[in-house]
């Protein structure tokens, strides 16, 4: 059971010699939603979802725009409540601990559950190095060999060989795809057990998208990944399991292969075959 009341320990593995992901020392954790509801003021956007994201698997969330996918994953690391007037009900169990439980520190929750956003958003005032180090500094993990941790995170995000000799250049000067992997490295540096990705490739070209998808495949050995995507080919390529949402509700969830080839609900079939959405 994760201890959310205290700081999560940082990534500790030694940097390997190439860009392959580091040795698994910290497997991911499962996330289970129980009757999750999310509101913006009086408008109910997520209408009671029960869903499990298995540890060290990639789960894709698909569904038409406005169906509540993003809102749902923003409830998992309690980012939803940052929007004025927004609130959530129900339970989000990280392993066995309810992240909405009383006495749970929202800051510790976010250290255990990282997030990558739709638009790459490196900190504009910081260099490549400082962007990753910021992940550690902002989450009060100053101890240890900062440089080694930054390098490990950049290697983990498959970016090290590309930025090795420009660590002091502005992070915003990288290409879009590199910026997004920089953001992934920044999240990894904090040492999360789960990473939420909210349409991480929607602002990227196909080559950069492919790199992120390969990265997702490598990362799942150390974290649990939940990815929201509008791109059904992407869900088919990266996800072990896929969940289909419609109008704030979960329609069905299952192994990706099954969702795309023989879904049990006709609405899923209509969506994945492009009849609506």
């Amino acid at each position: 059971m994760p201890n959310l009341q205290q700081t999560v320990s940082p990534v500790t593995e030694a940097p390997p010699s190439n860009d392959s992901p580091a040795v698994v020392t910290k497997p991911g954790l499962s996330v289970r939603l129980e009757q999750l509801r999310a509101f913006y003021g009086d408008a109910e956007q997520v209408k009671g979802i029960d869903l499990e994201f298995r540890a060290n698997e990639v789960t894709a969330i698909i569904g038409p725009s406005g169906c509540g996918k993003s809102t749902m994953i923003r409830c998992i690391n309690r980012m939803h409540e940052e929007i004025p007037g927004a609130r959530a009900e129900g339970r989000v169990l990280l392993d066995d601990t309810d992240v909405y439980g009383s006495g749970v520190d929202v800051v510790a929750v976010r250290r255990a559950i990282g997030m990558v956003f739709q638009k790459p958003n490196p900190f504009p005032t910081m260099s490549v190095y400082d962007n990753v180090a910021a992940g550690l500094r902002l989450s009060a993990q100053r101890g240890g060999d900062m440089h080694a941790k930054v390098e490990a995170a950049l290697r983990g995000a498959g970016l090290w060989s590309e930025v090795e000799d420009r660590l002091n250049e502005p992070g915003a000067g990288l290409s879009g795809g590199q910026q997004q992997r920089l953001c992934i490295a920044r999240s990894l540096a904090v040492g999360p057990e789960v990473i939420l990705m909210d349409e991480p490739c929607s602002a990227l070209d196909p080559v950069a998208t492919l790199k992120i998808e390969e990265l997702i495949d490598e990362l799942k050995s150390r974290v649990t990944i939940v990815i929201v995507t509008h791109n059904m080919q992407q869900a088919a390529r990266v996800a072990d399991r896929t969940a289909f949402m419609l109008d704030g509700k979960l329609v069905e969830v299952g192994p990706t292969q099954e969702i795309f080839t023989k879904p049990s609900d006709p609405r899923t079939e209509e969506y994945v075959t492009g009849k609506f959405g």
Partner: protein
Amino acid sequence: MSTQAPTGDLMARFGVSAARRRKDRIARGAILAATIVALIPLVLIVYYLLSKGLGAWSSSFFTTDPTGNTFFKSESIGGIKSAILGTVEMVALASAISVPVGVGVAVWLVEYGKSSWFAHTVRFFVDVLTGVPSIVFGLFIYIVLIVGTGSSFAGYKGSLALSLLMLPVVIRSAEVILLLIPAGLRESALALGAPRWKVIFSIVLPTALPGMVTGMLLAVARAAGETAPLLFTAASTKATSFNLSGFMNSLPVQIYGDVTSPTTAVVNRAWGAALTLVVMILLLNLLARLISRRSRLA
């Protein structure tokens, strides 16, 4: 594709009529005339400042204090050293008060108050303060700190009056810059597990810094040119003073005193002081532009 000029029917549609040409010429002329009319006083101000002010400038002009010997030889009237230093000292103290407080208010408004009723109330009063004439700030300090305490004029009281004048400018300009910071930046820092205060200090404020400096310098420039808040708070004196609890000279008050003098040399000193003040503010504005050019937001 034809390169021929349109002819016949097309020319009737595409040609510009004489009436439209005439209207266009009149409108352009009117706008140009308005611009020239607006430029006349500006050019005249700069011309008089330079022609009269430069004549008063000399090395001793900046290095000596004004003397009281205004009815004797023009060389004996002294310079404006105490006024320059007094303005610098009082504006520095005023900035040291209003910048931290103003930035604090702006951070609260943007990061915490948002659209609560109290935040709206604060914004309303800040707007009201922006429109308050500068003499009212001087009057307020005079009533509270001089009449109210039965004490005398002092440099720090002038600084307080100036800081009140600067405060709404600082708050509004800092708030505008803070609002420009993309929400995604705050979100990504929060999502890393950063406490809110750290997000503000490590991400929001450094990103906003270049833009905020511009606003601060403009507030400083405005305060440096104010006479009214200083007249009956810091009064004026002749000697250079580094004691902010005593009387203090300043450029605007020196100019105010000098222009009413019957002695030509003293009036010329006012022109010299005015040119000095304008150059100081111009330098500040240039600095503000230089810094804002480095801004990553604008």
